[in-house]
C-alpha cells in the first residue's frame, strides 16, 4: 500500500509550552484518516505543521515521498488544504479567486472550467460573481472546497470542513471525499462530529494534550478500549467518561 503521508516524531513548542509532543502516523493512498481530539489538544497545530504552514520544532513530514522541509513547493503542489475558518481575499470575487488558485497551481484551463462547473452544480454555487467579503461562512467554505477539489490533489487536509455547510452540501462533500479516496487520494480530516468520523474514516487517531493516545480502525479502537461507540471511546481516551459529563451537567 502506498504511504502518501508519513509523519515522524513531530513536535511543536511555543516558548515553554509544548503543544504537540512527538507524534507519528501514516496515511495510505485510498484512506480517510480522522484526527480527533478535544479543544486545544493540538489538532490544528499538527495540521498546520504537516501542511507546511508552521515550522515544527522537531520531527519530519513526508508527503508523496517528498520531505516537506526540503521540498515545500513540490509538496504543496500535491496537497489541498481546507481550513476550519476560511479567511480569503474579501475584495476578490469568487471567480477571480478560483482563477488565482488555478493559475498558481498551473491548472489546465479546460479542465479547471469543467471541474468548477461540476462542483458549482454539486454545491449549488451561484455566487461566484460576488465579492468574497459578502459571503457567509458556508459560502466561503464552499468556495474553498471548490478551489481544492477542482485540482483533485493527491492528499487533502480538511479541518472541520463540514462546519457551516448545509445538510445536502455536507452529504455531497462526504461522498466526494470517499470517491477521491477510492480514486487513490489520501484524506486527513479533523472533526468534532464523531458520527462523521465513525461513518467516513478508515482509520482514526485520537490526540490528547499533544500526544496521540490511540490509533487504528474503529474495530481496533473498540477492542482496545472495550467500548462500543466512538463517543465512549473518545471520552475514555481523553480522560472523561459518561459519569463525569453527567455530573457536570447535573451541577449546572
Amino acid at each position, binding site marked *: 500500500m502506498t504511504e502518501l503521508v508519513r509523519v515522524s516524531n513531530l513536535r511543536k513548542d511555543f516558548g515553554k509550552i509544548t503543544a504537540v509532543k512527538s507524534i507519528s502516523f501514516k496515511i495510505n493512498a485510498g484512506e480517510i484518516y480522522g484526527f480527533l481530539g478535544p479543544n486545544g489538544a493540538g489538532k490544528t497545530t499538527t495540521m498546520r505543521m504537516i501542511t507546511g*504552514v508552521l515550522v515544527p520544532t522537531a520531527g519530519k513530514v513526508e508527503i508523496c515521498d517528498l520531505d516537506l522541509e526540503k521540498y515545500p513547493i513540490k509538496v504543496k503542489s500535491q496537497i489541498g488544504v481546507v*481550513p476550519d475558518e476560511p*479567511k480569503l481575499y474579501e475584495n476578490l470575487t469568487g471567480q477571480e479567486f478560483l482563477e488565482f488558485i488555478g*493559475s498558481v497551481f498551473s491548472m*489546465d*484551463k479546460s479542465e479547471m472550467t469543467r471541474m*468548477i462547473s461540476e462542483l458549482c452544480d454539486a454545491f449549488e454555487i451561484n455566487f461566484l460573481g460576488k465579492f468574497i467579503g459578502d459571503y457567509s461562512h458556508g459560502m466561503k467554505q464552499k468556495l474553498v472546497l471548490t478551489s481544492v477539489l477542482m485540482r483533485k490533489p493527491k492528499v487533502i487536509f480538511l479541518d472541520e470542513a463540514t462546519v457551516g455547510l448545509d445538510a445536502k452540501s455536507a452529504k455531497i462533500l462526504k461522498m466526494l471525499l470517499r470517491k477521491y479516496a477510492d480514486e487513490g487520494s489520501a484524506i486527513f480530516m479533523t472533526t468534532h462530529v464523531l458520527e462523521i468520523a465513525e461513518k467516513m474514516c478508515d482509520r482514526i487517531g485520537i490526540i490528547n494534550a499533544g500526544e496521540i493516545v490511540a490509533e487504528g480502525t474503529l474495530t481496533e479502537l473498540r477492542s482496545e478500549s472495550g467500548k462500543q461507540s466512538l463517543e465512549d471511546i473518545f471520552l475514555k481516551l481523553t480522560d472523561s467518561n459518561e459519569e463525569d459529563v453527567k455530573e457536570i451537567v447535573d451541577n449546572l
Partner: protein
Amino acid sequence: MNQLGLLLKYKLTMWSNIPKRRGRRGMPLFVYILILGSVFALIGVPAYFLFAEIFKNYSTIVFGGVSLADLFVEISMIGILVLVLVTDTPAVALNVFMSDDVDFLLSLPISQSTIFTAKTIETMIQGGFPALFVIPVLAAYANAVNMPWYAIIFMFVMYIFYFLILTAISALIALGISKFASRSGTQRFMIFTSLIVYVFVIILMSMVGSLNSNAANVEAAFSNYVNTINAPYLPSTWFLEAIKMQWNGILLVIGTGVVLSAIAYLVASNGILTGFSKMTSASKHVIQKRNYRIRRPVIAFISKDVKLMRREPSILFLLVYPAIFPLILVGVGALGKGGSATSRDIMIPVVSVFLSSMYTVIATASLVSMEIKVGDFVNTLPIGKRTPLWSKAFVITSAFVIIMIVIFSILSAIFGGALFPIVTVLFSIPVLLILSFFGVYATIKWPNSIGGIRRPLNTTGTLVSMGMGVLGAAIADLEGIYVVDNKLLSFVQPFLGFLLFFVAPVVVEIVMAIVTFKLLSKIDWTKPYDLEN
C-alpha cells in the same frame, strides 16, 4: 457602570489586549499619552508663537466690525468643521454599521442608541486628533486679544460644545448614508470626501501663505471672503460670538450642540438596525462567467494584488496624493501663474516624488496587511516565500511610477519641458522599490495594535516610514536636480556638488537597499503573529 461605559471599557480592553496577544509587550497608557503629548507639544508650541505674532499684527485690521484675527479663528473653525465632517462621517458610518463586532453587539440587550453612541465616540477618539491642533491657535488668539483667564477657560468649554455640534452632524449624516449607501459606496465616498479636504487644505494654505505679503495685500485678499467666512448661519461664526461673550453666540453653540446630539441619539435608537441591514446586505453584482484565465503563478499574484489595490480605498487614497497635489498646486496658482518656469518644472516633480516616496511604505504595508489577514492560506500555496513580497513591491512601485508619468505628461503637455520629470521618475524607481520592501518589513516589525488595512503601522512604524520616505525623496530629487539642472547647485564647487548631490545620494540608496534586505532576511513575513498560537 452604565452600558455606554461598559462598551467603551470593553473596547479599550480589546485594544490594549491585542499587542499582548501578538506576544508584544504593550506600552503602558501613560507612555502613549507621553508620546502623543510630545508630538502635540512639538507642533503646538511653535504654532502658538507663530500665530500669537500673526494675531497681534492683524487684530488691528478690521472689516465691518470683524478683525482679521477673528477671521482666522473662524477659518480655523471652518477647517475643523470640514475635516471632521468629510473624514469622520464615512468613518463613523463604516465603524458603526460595518465593524466586526456590531453584529454581536446588536444581539445583546443594549439599546441601539447606546451602541451608536459608543461607536461614534470610538471613531471620534481616533479621528478627532487633528481637532487638538486648533488649541494653540485659540490660545494665541486669547493672548493677542488679552483675554482674562476665565474667558480662556470659557473659550475652551465652547470649543467642546463646538466639537459636539460637529460630532452630532457627522453622526446624523452617517445615519443618513447608511440608509442608501452600500459598503463599497461609502468607501468610495471616503475617497471623494478626502479629495474635497485636500482641495480645501490647499486653498487654506494659499490663503495663509498670503500672510507673508504686506497688510494692504492681506486686506485686499480677505475683503472678498469676509461675508462668506462670517456668515451668520455658520457654527464658526457662532463660536466667535460665543468666545466674545455674546449671548446669541453662546446660546447657539450650546443649544445646537445639545439639540443635535439629542436628535442624533433619538434617530440612532431607531435607525441603526435598518442602516446595518442595508450596509451589510450582499452586493448585487452577480455575473458568473464561464471563461477562466490561467496565468503564470507570478503574474497571477501581480494580477490579484492589482485588483486588491484597486478595490481598497485607503490605498487608492495614498495613490491619489502624488497625482492630485501637483494639479491642485497648478490649479490654485501656487506654481502655475506666479512661479517661474524653472521653479514649476522643478517643484512639481519634487512634490510628486516626495509624496510618492512618503506613501510607498504605508501603501505596501496596507497591501501586505491584506495578505496577513488571510492567515495561513498563502503558506499552503506552492510558491516561493518571496513571490507575494516581490509582487506587492512591484505593484505599488509601478502604481506610483505610472501615476507620476501620467501627471508629468499632462503637465508637460500644458507647460512644455519634460526632461527633469522623466529623469526624476527614473531615479525614483529604485528608491520606491526599496521603500516598498521596507514597507513589508515595517508591517511585520511595527504593526498597528488595533490591526487592519487602513492603518497598518503603529506610531513608531508610521514615523519611521515617514523618515524613510523623506530620505528616499531627497535621494531621487537630488539626483534628478544634479543630472538635469546643475545650475541650481552653482552655490557649491563642481566637485563638491558631484559628491554631495550625486555620489552621496547613490551611496545612501545602496546602504538603504542593503539594510532593508538584511532586515527582511531576518524576519519571516508570512508568520508575523506566530506567538498567537
